[in-house]
């Protein structure tokens, strides 16, 4: 029985939450309500990146990924309304 490290448990938690929220993203019928589940997925993936490869550059990759998905969700939400982005 080998010892499970903290890092392995943490990344398994993140991956499990990622899969659950991905299923909920796809199963949800209302487009706007898909976005909070997608947000949870982004958290899980960003956390998984840091746990997979603990290198200083990974902080940059996780931050870039997270800010990217935030920008993307904002664009989807404000575009769905038919209005421009929030710089009017």
């Amino acid at each position, binding site marked *: 029985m080998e010892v499970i490290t903290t890092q392995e448990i943490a990344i398994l938690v993140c991956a499990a939450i990622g899969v659950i929220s991905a299923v909920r993203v796809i199963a949800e019928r209302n487009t706007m309500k898909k976005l909070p589940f997608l947000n949870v997925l982004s958290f899980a993936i960003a956390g998984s990146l840091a746990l997979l490869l603990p290198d200083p550059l990974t902080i940059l*990759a996780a931050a870039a*990924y997270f800010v990217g998905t935030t920008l993307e969700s904002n664009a*989807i939400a404000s575009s769905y309304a038919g209005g421009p982005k929030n710089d009017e």
Partner: protein
Amino acid sequence: MLEGRRTMNELLLGAFGALLVLGAGATILEHDPYKKIISLSVLIGGAIPFIVDRGLIDVATAVALIAPLSTIFILMAVRRAAP
């Protein structure tokens, strides 16, 4: 860069692979363009851990910045096509 590190075991491979499959399947099967774009985000979210696990952090950062930008450009095209 940091090639050769192997932190991903089979469970993680299965989990992120499931994200890829779910994302790809939903992108193909959905009809509404906004739902397609959201499913595409699921697909990319599943792909990035594989890139980082291989040690290609620079590729991962580039993909993480370029993919949402492309999505925003697609959104602009979608809005023009279906006002």
